[in-house]
């Protein structure tokens, strides 16, 4: 479970995130929806501990993440905005590196690495260096290394951005699986169909603020539109809660 309360982050005089509050529950997929530059990535970066909020609190499974960032991070699996791989390491080695940093014991680590690579259909790349991977393959390896320690909470920053249909489906399948396992999944997107197809709960962000929060149906009702896309444009476009 992840709870953000009144998060604020300024870059100079610009408020990138200006009072974001929401909760993402276990066994649920929460979507962070917003146009480019709305503050999605900055919000996520504060949640996964690579940026400090100027004010506000973050709780990860009831751990105060601003006071105990490493303890909180141990409970997070993250596909960050910048998820570069090491070109000279194989897929297996990338996943193993993160598992070792999490302190996994080697027998268990090998088992999980193989299992993850199999689930994500990456076995053919397991022992090949990542220099020549496609974008989709790189994203899947980055997801695999984020999940190696079986985190209770999974944060994905635009996971399907730039992926082809097959890879997009694979990523969606992972998200559904994580939900079925009772994990808390939070992902950001600016793609409407994706959010409506996957999410139990949607947080619409615009101009660094939460402009709406609810189930897809609730959002449609709130905006007074049948299509979620119209609802989104109406909600996000105003930049102010209605």
């Amino acid at each position: 479970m992840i709870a953000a309360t009144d998060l604020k982050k300024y870059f100079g005089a610009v408020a990138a995130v200006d009072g974001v509050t929401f909760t993402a529950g276990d066994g649920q997929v929460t979507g962070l929806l917003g146009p480019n530059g709305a503050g999605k990535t900055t919000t996520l970066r504060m949640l996964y501990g690579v940026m400090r909020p100027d004010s506000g609190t973050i709780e990860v499974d009831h751990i105060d993440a601003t006071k105990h960032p490493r303890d909180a991070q141990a409970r997070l699996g993250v596909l960050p905005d910048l998820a570069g791989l090491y070109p000279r390491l194989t897929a297996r080695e990338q996943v193993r590196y993160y598992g070792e940093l999490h302190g996994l014991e080697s027998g268990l680590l090998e088992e999980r690495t193989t299992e993850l690579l199999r689930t994500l259909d990456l076995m053919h790349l397991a022992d090949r260096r990542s220099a020549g991977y496609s974008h989709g393959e790189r994203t899947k390896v980055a997801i695999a290394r984020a999940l190696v320690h079986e985190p209770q909470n999974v944060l994905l920053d635009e996971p399907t951005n730039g992926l082809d249909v097959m890879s997009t489906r694979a990523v969606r399948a992972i998200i559904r699986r994580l939900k079925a396992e009772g994990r808390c999944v939070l992902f950001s997107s600016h793609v409407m169909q994706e959010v409506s197809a996957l999410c139990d709960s949607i947080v619409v962000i615009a101009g660094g603020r939460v402009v709406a929060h609810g189930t897809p149906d609730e959002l449609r009702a709130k905006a007074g539109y049948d299509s979620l896309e119209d609802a989104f444009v109406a909600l996000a476009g105003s930049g102010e809660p209605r």
Partner: protein
Amino acid sequence: MKRPGPVPRWARQVRVVLVKELVDSFRDKRALVSILLSILVGPLITGFMMNRIADRQKDADDVRIPIVGARNAPALVQWLSQQSGVSVAIGPGDPEQAVRDQTEYVVLVVPPDYAADFRSSRPASIKVVADGARADTQGQVQRVQRLLAQYSAEIGALRLIGRGVSPAAATPLKVEEVEVSTTQQRAAKLLSVIPLMVLLAAFTGAMQLATDATAGERERGSLEALLVNPVPRGALALGKVMASALAGMLAVMVTAGLCTALLRFIPLQELGMRFRFGTPHMVGLMAAALPVCLLTASVQSCVATLAKSFKEAQTYMGILILAPMIIGVMGTLYPIDNQPWMYGVPLLGQYVLLTSVLGGYAPGPLAFLVAAVVCVLTAGLLLRATVALLNNERIVFGR
């Protein structure tokens, strides 16, 4: 019974980072080639320089003296040809042109009135034609001049005895040169290129890994993902610095090993040195040079973390490497007399220690300890600075 406590989590993470960086960089062919080249350049330059110096010295011992007008001074010519290592030849038609063309390095010209002057005990003139601008033949020219002075003194002494005067009366001064430097110290002056090469290896060996693990990590976009792991920034920085320090140490050991191995093949005896390089010298070199790798790795990591791109980091590396070069050049131009404070200055201390070890008059263990501790402390400060940079969002996200 006290049992050792378990290895702390951060220490295991340091090891994980260290191993990963080493594996990663040893697969980097470009990096390996550049490290290999930088390791080989030192010994090659050393071997080349030593060989040339030895050759030149050998040339000075064996001199060939072309003489124009040898007929005018048969006694002198005979005396010269009796000296060891000297051979006499017939001089060229135009001595000055021959020396200018560098076909001869020196020519003796005996004028026709030599014999008459000599017989009547007037100073008989003799010309030594040489090119003072040529550094490579100076030794030989000096040898010729010394031989002539010696001949002159011998004849002078004989003439005095012939007139019933003791030659001692004509020698008011007896100049004795007391050489205080040991032969090994003189050798060290010639060997001063080795400390420079060893210090350079500490920079070049660590450089590629230090840049790749910091500026490279960010440029590849893998830094943000790495920072999401529950690892203290200090452990990340320490792992990376240790990995590049190990690479630097490897370069230092290979460079020192090859340079000193070369000494066996170089005719050092012909330089008038009895230089014996043994295990204690090698231990001394390592004790002086290995701690400096921690310093080079941490300063390079810190600077490369600060750089906005991999390219920019490489530019900074080029500037950093000037530090040992300046010390090396200064050390060659102005012979460094060891002052105790020098051990407390990173790099300079190591340079002085290395030179001393090669000179065979290594200072006590305290000097090594002081120099090493200063290195480790400076490295620690730089590590803290790197951690501060990794905690800076502007640096991590390049704003």
